C-alpha cells in the first residue's frame, strides 16, 4: 500500500469515517483472524482484538503520538498480535493453548507498555457498549458530568426514574467489568506491583 493510501486511511480513521473503517476491516481482518485462530483464539477474540487495535491506533493518532516507520497495515498487525499475545499471557490459566510461536515474542517495548495500559480501558468500553440503549444514554451523560436533574431534562425521564436507572446501570456495568477475566487478571497484576 502506498503512503498516499495510508495517509487517506489515517485521515479517515481520525475523522471516524465509517466507509474507511469498513474498507480497513474488509482488507485486514482476515490476517488477524488467521493469527488469532491459530493461537487459541475464537471469532469473538478476533473481533475484540481488531476493534481494540483500531481504537489503539485512533487514540495514538488523535494524541499525535503515532510515528509510522512501516506501512500502516504492518503497524496494525504488530499492534494486534501484541494485544492478543498479551491477553493470552494474562489468561494462561484460562486458555489451553499451544506454545506461542517464538517470533511473536518480539515486541517494541514502548508499544507493549501502552497496550498493557490500555487493556483496562478496552474492558470498560467492551461492556459499556453491551448495555441497553437507556443505560448507555443515562451513563454517558453522567460521565460527561451532568447532574441527575440535567440528565432527566435531556432524556425526558422523571428525575426519580433517572436516579434509579443510573444506579442500576452503573452497578450492572461494574459487575460485568469485574467478572471479565482480563480485568481480573489486570487487577491481580496491579495488586502485585
Amino acid at each position: 500500500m502506498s503512503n498516499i493510501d495510508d495517509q487517506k486511511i489515517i485521515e479517515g480513521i481520525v475523522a471516524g469515517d465509517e466507509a474507511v473503517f469498513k474498507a480497513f476491516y474488509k482488507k485486514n481482518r482476515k490476517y488477524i483472524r488467521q493469527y488469532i485462530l491459530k493461537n487459541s483464539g475464537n471469532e469473538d477474540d478476533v473481533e475484540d482484538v481488531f476493534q481494540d487495535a483500531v481504537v489503539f491506533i485512533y487514540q495514538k493518532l488523535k494524541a499525535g503520538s503515532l510515528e509510522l516507520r512501516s506501512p500502516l497495515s504492518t503497524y496494525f498487525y504488530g499492534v494486534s498480535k501484541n494485544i492478543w499475545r498479551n491477553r493470552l499471557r494474562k489468561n494462561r490459566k484460562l486458555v489451553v493453548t499451544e506454545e506461542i510461536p517464538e517470533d511473536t515474542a518480539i515486541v517494541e517495548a514502548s508499544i507493549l507498555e501502552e497496550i498493557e495500559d490500555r487493556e483496562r480501558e478496552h474492558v470498560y468500553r467492551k461492556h459499556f457498549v453491551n448495555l441497553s440503549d437507556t443505560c448507555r444514554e443515562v451513563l454517558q451523560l453522567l460521565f460527561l458530568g451532568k447532574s441527575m436533574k440535567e440528565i432527566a431534562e435531556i432524556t425526558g425521564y422523571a428525575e426519580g426514574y433517572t436516579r434509579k436507572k443510573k444506579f442500576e446501570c452503573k452497578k450492572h456495568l461494574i459487575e460485568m467489568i469485574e467478572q471479565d477475566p482480563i480485568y481480573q487478571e489486570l487487577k491481580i497484576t496491579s495488586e502485585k506491583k
Partner: protein
Amino acid sequence: MERTPEIFEKIEKYLTNQLSPEELALFENEMANDTVLQKEVATHKAIHGTLSDQETLEVKEKLIKVSEEVKKEESSFTRTLFSSPIRIAATIIVVLGVGTLLWNTIDTTDELRNLYAAHYVPFPAEDITRGEPNPALQSIMNNYNKGAYGKVVKALEKDTNLVGQKELGVYLGTSYLNTNQEQSAIAQFENILNTSKYYEASRWYLSLAYLKLKNTTKTTEILEEIIEYKGVYKDNAVRLLNALTE
C-alpha cells in the same frame, strides 16, 4: 461493601467536587479507614475517566456496526451464490474454467503484500552490545531498535568487517528489507552460512524477501526447507505456507 444508590451518589459527588467541605472531610475520613471504599472510588474514577471520552466510544461503536454489516453482506452473498442449482453450476464453471483468469484479475499484489505484513516481525535485537566497548556497534543496534533501518544499512555497508565479526548479516538483511532493497536483502541472507547461529532466521527472512518480490515459487521452496529443518521457525513457515496455498 454492599453497593447502594447512596454510596454511588456520594462517590459521584466526590469525583465531581460537589461535596460540601464538611461532607468532603467526612468522606475522606471514611475512605482513609476503609480500603474497600478506596477501591470502589478508584474503580468509579477509572470508569468515568475512560467512558467520558465519547469520541473513542463512538469509534468502538462504529467498528461494531461495520463488523455486523460486513458479516451480513458476506452471509447474504453466500446465500445468493448458492441459492439455486443453476447458480451452483455457474459457480463451478467460473471456478474451474476461469480460475486462473480470476487469480490474475484479483489484485494478488495486495494479497501478497498483506501476507508479508501479517508474517513479518522484526528480527529481535539481541543484547549483542552487552559488555561491548565498541560505540559504533552500540549506535548501530540503537538505530536498529529504533527502526532507523536506513542508518543501519549505511553504517554496516561502511563497516563490512563488523558484519562478519559480529554476525550482523541478518540485521543488515532485515534492514535492507525495511528500506525496500529486497535484492540486497536476498544477497545478504544467502551469504549467511549454515554453520551460523542465524542460519535458520536468515532462511525465514529470505522467504519473506521473496514474498515481498511476489516470487511465491521461491518463497514456497524456502518455506519447505525451513519446515524440513524443524527449528524455531517451523511453525511460522507452516502457517505462511498454508496461507499461500489457501
